[in-house]
């Protein structure tokens, strides 16, 4: 489904990704862990098409299409979704209105009919129920004045509504207390499906107690230096990243 081969990317003069390889199959959840500055956020941003990154080599193929050739909105239309580490505030833009516009632009791009207000509200209610959320956030402006936990919940709600094929969760656990973390993780679990792959980018093992990954990858110095099952995450929690880096250097 997603195939990343030898990906290299620069920010300004600095090479951040140095030959990253990753294969994600349908319905799989992959965790990407790594120390600060290893390139985790850069990878999320390159996948979703943010400006400011220069890809110098390698390829990213999503369902047979060259993802890197597409604009961010075109990637969204294909079913790529990025849950932001720092969701952006849009003052004055009503959250419900925003969601409806986003959903309809995606539906339109896929040649589906746009949802009218009634069907859209019905859909919203259904999704709120799945995630055990109330509609208090929907009446407000997008992320404006939201607490950290509210912002992340809003991201997960957007994901539920837009039903992506590939969701990238960029440090969704950062800044969350344990209760908020559980709410977010429950949401993500409710959205697990054989048709939906996820890349969970995280600094700590903590999130993986709640979201169980199929594969765990260690990202360091811009490439994946070790991959394994979920037990790798536990090992990292216990020993830190140091030992892998040392092994890597010795090799």
């Amino acid at each position, binding site marked *: 489904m997603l195939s990343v081969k030898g990906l290299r990317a620069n920010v300004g003069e600095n090479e951040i990704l140095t030959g990253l390889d990753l294969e994600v199959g349908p319905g799989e959840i992959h965790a990407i862990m790594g120390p600060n500055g290893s390139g985790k956020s850069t990878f999320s941003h390159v996948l979703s*098409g943010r400006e400011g990154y220069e890809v110098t080599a390698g390829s990213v193929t999503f369902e047979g299409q060259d993802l890197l050739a597409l604009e*961010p*909105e075109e990637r*969204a*239309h294909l079913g790529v979704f990025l849950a932001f580490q720092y969701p*952006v505030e849009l*003052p004055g*833009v009503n959250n419900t209105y925003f969601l409806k516009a*986003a959903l309809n632009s995606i539906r339109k791009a896929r040649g589906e009919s746009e949802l009218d207000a009634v069907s859209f509200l019905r859909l919203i209610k259904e999704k709120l129920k799945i995630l055990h959320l109330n509609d208090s956030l929907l009446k407000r402006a997008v992320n404006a004045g939201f607490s950290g936990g509210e912002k992340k919940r809003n991201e997960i709600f957007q994901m539920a509504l837009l039903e992506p094929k590939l969701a990238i969760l960029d440090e969704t656990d950062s800044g969350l207390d344990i209760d908020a973390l559980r709410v977010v993780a429950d949401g993500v679990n409710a959205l697990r499906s054989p048709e939906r792959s996820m890349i969970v980018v995280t600094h700590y093992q903590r999130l993986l107690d709640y979201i169980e990954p199929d594969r765990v990858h260690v990202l360091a110095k811009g490439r994946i230096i070790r991959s394994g099952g979920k037990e790798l995450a536990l090992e990292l929690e216990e020993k830190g990243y140091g030992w892998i880096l040392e092994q890597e250097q010795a090799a």
Partner: protein
Amino acid sequence: MTSTQAVDDIVRSEYEHGFVTEIESDTLPPGLDEEVVRAISARKGEPEFMTEWRLKAYRHWLTMATPHWASVHYPPIDFQSISYFSAPKRPEDMPKSLDEIDPALLETYEKLGIPIEEQKALAGIAVDAVFDSVSVATTFRAALADAGVIFCSISEAVHEHPELIKQYLGSVVPHTDNYYAGLNAAVFSDGTFVYVPKGVRCPMELSTYFRINARNTGQFERTLIIAEAGSYVSYLEGCTAPQRDENQLHAAVVELIAMDDAEIKYSTVQNWYPGDAQGRGGIYNFVTKRGECRGARSKISWTQVETGSAITWKYPSCILRGDDSIGEFYSVAVTKGRQQADTGTKMIHLGRNTSSTIVSKGISAGEGQQTYRGLVRISQRAEGARNHTQCDSLLIGDRCSANTFPYIEVKHPSANLEHEATTSKISDDQLFYCRSRGLTEEDAVSMIVNGFCKEVFNELPMEFAVEAQKLLSISLEGAVG
């Protein structure tokens, strides 16, 4: 119109159609002196008092100088090169078909979904059949007459209601007020007159759109609206479609008068031709708009959406003379390309417990330059006066600019004033966030801008608000990047 153009017109007309004399009687040669003012008054068959009124204004105008305090830049205007009276164009002189019109303009009409016949009218093309609104207009006039509301051109009012004209014309904006108001008083072409009698709630929103003969009122338009005690009227001016005009300088005057407990709501959507990409040929819009809350508990509310013109110089204001009277100003102004706007309001608090609200939203894109200039004055006897001002600027791109000049003069210790101001940019983060959710960059900009303007759009009559949103989106297409 420059003198060469006028001559060209005559030469060409003579060659093609051969009735020079008629042309000569229709258009005055460029230039302005007392004879020209008299000639204008005579062509319009005005009574003596009106001719004298104009002459007085003209003589005073001669002693005035063009204002230079606004933050706008343009070459000096040669007032002697302008022709101050031209009768409505004859069909032969108009563009023959849409093929002769700037394609960019047509594209905008298309996007706004304007019917083809209306596109022609807006572009100044001769249309044989007048479209549907004639019958609509007739129906409306009948309903208005039943209610006792007078709604006609100001020229008609001069003939049919001279007592009202004598009493009110120039009573809010005197000819001595400023250079362009003086010029307007001397040479005004035509405009709108509204009189709402005591206790009458005008049965519909009034709009120049429904006054067929309001088209082509020319560059010096004059509007006078009088709301007697306890009456209400809502007036819509302008059009969301870009309007083309041969005259570069527009110096209109609008006067509103609200008596005890009366309310006037005046909404404007201004979308004059802003000029080409280099700003050539755009309209200079130098307007004086002022309302006076003459009676107690009266209310005047200005709402404006300004997207057109090369230069806008405009400060719709309220004089709050009656006790407990209310003044409001809600504004969205957009400058893009090479557009310049210096706009804002004046709230003059004279009566007790008067209150005013100012909400100004300025959007600047491209190389647009924008200035908010506002005055809140609390006089010595305006006990308990209140004002709330909110003044926000939004910048798109890094070549535009926004300035804010709030003037506050307070002469009574009980006054309560609040002033909030923000300047923000549409950030790359915001755009990327929207795009990653599937919205195009243009949709994202339009959504963020509409969110920014929401408080003002809420004040517009429903269908106008919808059009204004659409207009804003179209105006800002391609503004980013």
